[in-house]
């Protein structure tokens, strides 16, 4: 029996990380301080559910922007896979390579699946102070949609004001 995953819960400090987004650029969590960040961990580039899920998020970038929120996707795939995947699917947000050491960031957020060697399909909304506000793990084959993300962003906007 697969243990139910327990992602890093609300109220915890979101561990900082720095991962490659292109062959010569990296993205760190700290650089988004002051703004909400949506972390979308997904198992693998190219799998059907991932593609639908990320296409939906691409469609919602203008909505996320209304909250001044940044979206980043994270998987264990390497940077060249990410680049080809983003180009093929018209994705215009950073896909970070949690590739070496493999899955290290997923592990710190407690969403790594060691049997499969990929991350869970997990969502985190992190506030401007770098604290987890909402986290959710979806069954790997199921697209979690975006209603949870928007609710969490609504909550942040109500508390802090823009």
């Amino acid at each position, binding site marked *: 029996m697969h243990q139910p995953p327990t*992602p890093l*819960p*609300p109220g915890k400090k979101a561990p900082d990380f720095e991962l490659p987004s292109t062959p010569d650029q990296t993205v760190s969590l700290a650089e988004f301080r002051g703004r909400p960040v949506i972390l979308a961990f997904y198992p693998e580039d190219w799998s059907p559910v991932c*593609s*639908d*899920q990320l*296409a*939906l998020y*691409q*469609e*919602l970038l203008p*909505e996320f922007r209304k909250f001044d929120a940044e979206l980043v996707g994270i998987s264990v795939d390497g940077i060249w896979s990410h680049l080809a995947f983003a180009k093929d*699917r*018209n*994705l215009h947000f950073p896909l970070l390579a949690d590739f070496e050491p493999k899955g290290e960031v997923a592990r710190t957020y407690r969403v790594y699946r060691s049997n499969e060697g990929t991350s869970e399909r997990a969502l985190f909304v992190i506030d401007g102070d770098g604290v987890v*506000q*909402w*986290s*959710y*793990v979806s069954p790997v084959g*199921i*697209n*979690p*949609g*975006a*209603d949870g993300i*928007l*609710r*969490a962003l609504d*909550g942040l906007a109500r508390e802090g004001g823009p």
Partner: protein
Amino acid sequence: MSTTQWAALLTMPVAESRDHIQGPADAPVTLVEYGDYECPYCGAAYPIVKEVQARMGDRLRFVFRNFPITTSHPHAERAAEAAEAAAAQGSFWEMHDALYENQKRLRDEDLHVYAEQVGLDVESFDQELAEHVHAARVREDFMSGVRSGVNGTPTFYVNGTRYDDSYDLDTLLGALEEAASN
């Protein structure tokens, strides 16, 4: 806030004044579809919904809302706006059917042809498409779907609750019949 799951419910109730509806307002079952005209799964669901409607008759009210995922389907937004432009002339369902029956031909020229076939005033149809008159309506549908937990297309709601089971004829019909008898 928590990590718990919630039931996916339709956040924008069906309104006779705004929605595209087939079937009586007092039908015991309302089936809402969020669909994309270029999505092949929606194309596959199209004849199934027709069959379900034929079998249930007045016991079913069917509602269609737009959910174009343009990132994957470059013609879906224009097609949705075309259906809304037809709706402005009282011919939503005729255009809806033409779009799903010609899913692989959704360029602007094609939309113009369907508008002619449906018998629309094509001058105002073309103008409304060019000016994106109906884009706001399509976006309103889309965001109502996102807020209701639509995670891909088609997504169905049966009496306001997301239907997560298969939409093959037998399974969908069974679920609707069960909802009708409750």
